[in-house]
């Protein structure tokens, strides 16, 4: 690797490269930046991404409430519209009303989030989604070159990948990990920088920092045959450790197979993690987390809270951490009326409990959680559900959030079944008016990333006006 002549020159080059959408040599770049940024972090901060896997139905999550828009909503969703009367208790009253007079209510199942919104700890982001360039209208979309649009719009895997990586499938780093790259060196042990109780995560994978996976119920799982004698034999215990963790070389008489060496590295990290974290995890201090099942969000967020509580433990010493939790089954083509409420309830109850727990730990201003999903869904119903869309609605929660407000503009809904709205590319699939890059950059800025570095971490950010890159939903 060659070092750039100066950091300034290098950044200029990286920005130019990302403007043309050729992947910049991020590894080189971020490794160089990370060291300097890490030194400046003196307080603790954490980001917690809550992934609603499958494409959450945004129109039954944040429901149009003003008479004009509710009528359109009800017309497009004859069998799956939430009754207006059911929405009244969760009508949102933002500090600043929307200029167009649009009103929205949370889905009834999201009622546990209402006090957070009203208390100023929750912001609502309207019509946010994957973008490479701003696409101002359906007409602009129709004539946009393929390189100006996220590839394979409306496809789960592709859009889920783009949401996390800001690049197509095949990109192997996500923006949570790229942000973390810059701070990992400031943590006592970089292994505990990006942590997931939901398996491997592209979002948490940086250039140097990778996902550390834990169990939502068990935390860091010890490997019995390595931490204790194997069927009574400590010799076998020792050989088990050697065989499963050794990085072999071609010269030690065995094969240096890359699959084997990769596997052995995972086992090594597993052992280290269980040794350090496994001994440090305290119980949660509040009982607000509901009863847990195998993978639901409350189990995962409860475990994240315990890891945060252990942030200062010996061998951890974390200053910056990024977490990802996730729950599936949001792909409600069918039966959205019965399927989605329990899922949303899990989101709301868990996020509210998590915020309560952060309060108990005294880090409510240091921890920000936020939702993401594959994509939004069609306003238009397919009978008892909806199909894959684009722009969606998301939430940010925490003491550092400029809450009790909407950010961005809702899309103009189609005036009739036969007429599409200006941002509607078919069946109420709305072109986002805020990009994931802007969403992430706003969070990254709060986390301590400089404006210049954000342009490297978010390759499409440069395509948006400088004044709009920070969406303003985080306190400075």
């Amino acid at each position: 690797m060659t070092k750039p002549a100066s950091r300034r020159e290098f950044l200029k080059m990286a920005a130019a490269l990302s403007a043309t959408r050729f992947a910049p040599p991020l590894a080189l770049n971020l490794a160089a930046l990370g060291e300097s940024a890490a030194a400046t972090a003196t307080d603790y901060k954490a980001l917690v991404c809550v992934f609603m896997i499958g494409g959450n139905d945004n129109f039954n999550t944040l429901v149009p409430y003003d008479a004009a828009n509710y009528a359109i909503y009800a017309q497009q969703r004859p069998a799956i519209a939430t009754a207006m009367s059911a929405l009244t208790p969760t009508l949102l009253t933002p500090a600043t009303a929307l200029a167009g007079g649009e009103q929205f209510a949370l889905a009834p199942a999201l009622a546990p989030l209402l006090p957070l919104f009203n208390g100023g700890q929750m912001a609502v982001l309207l019509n946010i989604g994957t973008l490479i360039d701003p696409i101002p209208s359906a007409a602009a979309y129709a004539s946009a070159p393929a390189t100006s649009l996220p590839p394979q719009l409306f496809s789960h895997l592709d859009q889920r990948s783009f949401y996390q990586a800001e690049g197509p499938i095949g990109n192997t780093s996500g923006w949570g990990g790229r942000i973390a790259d810059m701070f990992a060196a400031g943590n006592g042990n970089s292994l505990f920088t990006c942590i997931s109780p939901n398996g491997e995560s592209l979002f948490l994978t940086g250039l140097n920092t990778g996902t550390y996976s834990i169990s939502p119920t068990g935390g860091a799982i010890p490997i019995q045959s390595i931490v204790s004698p194997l069927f009574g034999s400590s010799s076998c215990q020792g050989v088990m450790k050697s065989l499963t963790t050794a990085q072999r070389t071609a010269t030690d008489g065995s094969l240096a197979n890359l699959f084997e060496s990769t596997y052995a590295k995972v086992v090594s990290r597993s052992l280290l993690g269980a040794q350090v974290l496994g001994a440090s995890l305290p119980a949660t201090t509040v009982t607000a987390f509901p009863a847990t099942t195998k993978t639901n969000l409350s189990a995962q967020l409860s475990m994240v809270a315990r890891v945060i509580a252990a942030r200062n433990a010996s061998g951890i010493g974390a200053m910056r951490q990024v977490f990802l939790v996730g729950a599936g089954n949001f792909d409600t083509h069918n039966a959205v009326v019965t399927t989605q409420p329990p899922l949303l309830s899990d989101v709301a109850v868990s996020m509210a409990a998590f915020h309560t727990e952060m309060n108990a730990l005294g880090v409510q201003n240091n921890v920000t959680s936020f939702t993401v999903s594959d994509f939004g869904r069609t306003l238009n119903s397919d009978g008892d559900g909806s199909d894959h869309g684009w722009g969606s609605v998301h939430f940010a929660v925490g003491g550092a959030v400029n809450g009790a407000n909407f950010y961005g503009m809702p899309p103009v809904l189609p005036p009739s079944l036969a007429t599409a709205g200006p941002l509607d590319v078919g069946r109420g699939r709305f072109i986002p008016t805020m990009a994931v890059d802007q969403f992430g950059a706003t969070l990254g800025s709060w986390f301590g990333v400089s404006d210049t570095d954000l342009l490297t971490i978010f390759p499409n950010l440069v395509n948006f006006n400088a004044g709009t890159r920070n969406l303003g939903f985080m306190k400075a």
Partner: protein
Amino acid sequence: MNASSNAMIDSITSTPSTEGRDAATPVAEPAKSQMAVYSYNAAIAALSSLALAACGGGGGSPSAAAPSAPGGLSATAGVAQVTLAWMASMGATSYTISRATTSAGPFTAVGTATSTSFTDRSVTNGTEYYYILSASNAAGASANSAVAAATPMAAGLSRVQAARVLAQAAFGGAATDIQALQNQPNGIQSWLTQQFAIPVNPPGQLSNVAWLQANNLISVMFDTAGVQSSLWRKLISSPDVLRQRVMLALTDLFVVNTGAIQLTYRGAAVAYYLDQLEANAFGNFKDLLLAVSHTPAMGQYLTFLDSVKANPVTGTSPDENYAREIMQLFSIGVVQLNLDGTAKINPNDPNVALATYVQTDVLNMAKVFTGWKLDATANAFLGASAAADMVNNTSGFDTTEKLVLGQTIAAGLSGEQTLEAAIAILMQHSNIAPFISRQFIQRLVTSNPTPGYVSRVAAVFQSTQGDMKSIITAILTDSEAASGQLLTDPQAGKLREPVVRFIQWARTFQLNFAPSDATAWAKIGDLSNPSTKLGESPLQSPNVFFFFQPGYAPPQTALHDNGITAPEFGITNESSVAGYMNFIKNLIANGIGGVPGNYGAVQPLVNQGGNSAALLAELNVLIAAGQISGTSLNMMQSALDTIDTSTAAGANNRLYAALTLIMCTPEYLVQK
């Protein structure tokens, strides 16, 4: 393609717009000759006759120019022979086959052929031969084809070779299985023939639906556990092991999750779905797609059951779910592929692959999947309508014209005719052969088949129009599957699927639950918890994208940096490796539900000659097909020899420790 489906697909255009967006796709009215050209490119239906017709239709004589170089050359090793096959070159009258013993040549002619196959019997077993061929006609000879290689075998495989074949074609096997393969007169070829001949549901093995009924448990018709038990029963105890191995691969591809199916009789629905996969596993891929598309399990899981045509009054539209996923996951994928499985790149941007279809195709395909209902006349037993093909209900079916992938399905056809036409379009698409072939190779043999391997199997997919027996044979008998290269190349291999490791243990050590014992089979249950079990379990995938993806390369690893895909690493992390190692240790010592493995065949080796060498050597063959190095075996032996085997408990401890060490070492976990 039969006459009726020809009539249904009455218009064919060139490749659709590839801009990956929902813009209107310009549709040119087709000329008949375009149909022929398209079909030639797709190389599916009636290849040679259409191709020749297209040449003739141009007005010139087919022999006015020398033919093009033959494509799709495959070389299959047999005992003392190598069989070559290739795709016809347009206008060719004969082919000349040449051979060398190095890939660079020199090549010497060994024969000529007028058909598209040739058997070379003047070979020495154990020598690797490289073949090329050229096509010729009155105007001259073509350029040479790509090279294909094969190593003819001496009759009879070694134990290690046989164990390796069984790791690819089965779930490994016990010593008796290895011996049975060694006894085959013609190695894997005759083993495959024998396996193909075993009927579906061989004696003693009920179908999944019949097993649920036989157990007379009303609850199993609608719970998730009964059908899960039934599938474990088949995977572990059914003698048609090749079909079971292919079945597992099919459930990886055509994913359903029983618990996510919102049907009252979801157990029955999934049992029927599995029976349909089994019945068609050795049939035709087109029939697999048709069968899957008729099952209530898939209909409900991907939500086209009860989807109806657009309603202009209420404004509802057809459900797009299955329409998208049958293309994205079950047949052609999202980017255009070459025959060798590599992506076609946008000429205007090297970072963008060409899209296979656009949103308009999804919208049109969604019309195909309207009007499908449970068959209310199927009432032979409780839940029977979930265990019967869906039927098309004319009132809900969209009868308008559908434009799918540049081809038109005419208006006015029945729902069944329309589905058949839509699947015929998918079968004709040039992507389906490489897209499906590569994934089957990844499931059975290796994570990174060479482009040559993919194209050889894909060519068989094309030339046989999706015949599963031919595809399976092509995968398992390819020279690459048996090559020494895979054993020593540091970039080769595949991480064994956790479920396959478990089934291997159960089959090798004869977990002997009676096939009819529903209580026993229920003790296996859902093994998908990553931190305590396998992180993977059949019928438990979190969504239709399965537990891991075919293109996954773990980031920040040497695999990723070398461009190597390793799908199973998608579920390999700090938590799941601990979960697996703890699970397998407990399994080895305690079995399932209190029933231990049957270790009788290896018990006498525990202290043979006063040490554990013989035990380790045998386990290395049975479990790891000989792939654990001498260095590792020596390390294991010196540790195991410290365990006193003078008591029964001590002998067991040595056996359990040896097997645990072997099943946890990366040299076993990576199949080569």
